[in-house]
């Protein structure tokens, strides 16, 4: 089995489980919408928000709904000793990382297909940029979130307080991503062509650094789960 086959196999397995149980996707989308509605009421209900605030609101919703799904991605394997089975199988533990990151990425993108239209329905007035403006920054957020998050989900899954520890460990690490992403999508929502492109490069660098780090560090953490 080549590495790509292994990854494809693992991703299919996880997505099949998700399709049958639907335990993550519905709660992720629902919680994200809930955050958007809460924030819409919190800023005064139907009031126009400046583009950067709008971008911030979208990113908070995306992060919070993402962390909900992330907790399950790895914790699922702890039941019935699945991690041990995966680690003794003739499979590179790095492929396990790549597969889990891809599954999480798929879940995030899928839940945002619901989130983004709801965001524009609630906050769309007064925003010059449309749907297309936030697609690239959001995709980069999803990749950054999945690459760093999958590594940390293995760490958090090995503790007794998985649900509490995961956001505590992940959010500080993701703060620069939030800064960069809000700048990039804020400029785009203002309708500036090419605005915020300066933030795209460091965002991509974050994705690359954490994908490589995750590939090498994940096996150490997964062995302890």
């Amino acid at each position, binding site marked *: 089995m080549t590495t790509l086959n292994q990854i494809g196999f693992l991703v299919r397995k996880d997505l099949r489980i998700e399709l049958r149980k639907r335990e993550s996707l519905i709660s992720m989308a629902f919680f994200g919408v809930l955050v958007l509605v809460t924030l819409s009421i919190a800023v005064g209900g139907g009031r126009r928000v400046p583009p950067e605030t709008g971008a911030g609101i979208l990113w908070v919703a995306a992060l919070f709904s993402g962390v909900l799904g992330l907790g399950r991605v790895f914790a699922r394997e702890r039941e019935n000793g699945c991690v041990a089975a995966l680690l003794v199988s003739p499979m590179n533990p790095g492929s396990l990382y790549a597969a889990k990151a891809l599954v999480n990425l798929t879940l995030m993108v899928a839940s945002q297909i619901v989130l983004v239209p709801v965001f524009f329905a609630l906050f769309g007035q007064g925003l010059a940029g449309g749907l297309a403006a936030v697609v690239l920054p959001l995709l980069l957020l999803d990749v950054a979130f999945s690459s760093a998050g999958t590594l940390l989900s293995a760490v958090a899954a090995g503790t007794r307080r998985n649900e509490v520890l995961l956001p505590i460990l992940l959010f500080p*690490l993701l703060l620069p991503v939030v*800064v960069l992403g809000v700048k990039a999508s804020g400029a785009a929502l203002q309708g500036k062509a090419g605005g915020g492109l300066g933030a795209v490069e460091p965002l991509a660098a974050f994705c690359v650094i954490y994908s490589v780090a995750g590939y090498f560090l994940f096996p150490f953490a997964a062995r302890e789960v």
Partner: protein
Amino acid sequence: MMPRLSLTLSILAALLVPAAAAAVFFHAPVEQTMGVVQKIFYFHLALALSAFLSFAVACVSGILYLLRRERRFDVAGAASVEIGVVFTTLVLITGSLWGRSIWNTWWTWDPRLTTSLILWLIYASYLILRSAVEEEGRRATFCAVIAVAGFLDVPIVFLSARMFRSIHPTIITSDSVGLEPPMVRTLLLCLVAFLVLWAVLFRLRCSLLRNEARVRDLQFELER
């Protein structure tokens, strides 16, 4: 009994830190525009550099632990993160005090302030993780992973923080040091004093953590 090196370093730190404080107050001249508030800068910079050193040490010990699985690397990582978090806290507090009187605000989203705050949050979460895992081997592995992952964030944090405009003074650039000679001497003394203090704290915390682990080993053997 303390090992001789720790004892020597402790005595040295006990002499150097008050000497540094004395130099700040009596040797360094009062800055022309900022007045006496500027004197906080000497401790601020020395603390910031020592804090950054801690996180670098934690990252290197993390890598070494993952490769060799020896207890001493876990202990070194834990000790340096503890000191680093304390020092970063002091950096943020001294910076805030200075900023309140010079910038007229406790906090601003300047690159260096943002970087310090994010580093503080990352390594504070490391300490929370450390207290949440009981089993030694597992805790050491997880902490090593977080120490490495946290340090990898530093360049990105700094790049991202550049998105905010900077009002933080840059004193030392590659071509010049914007300080009077007595100020430079004071700064160097503060730096040495805090590095020695760092070394003392590091050695003491390491030996304490090692003894803790040894006691647990003995307890484990007794129960068996």
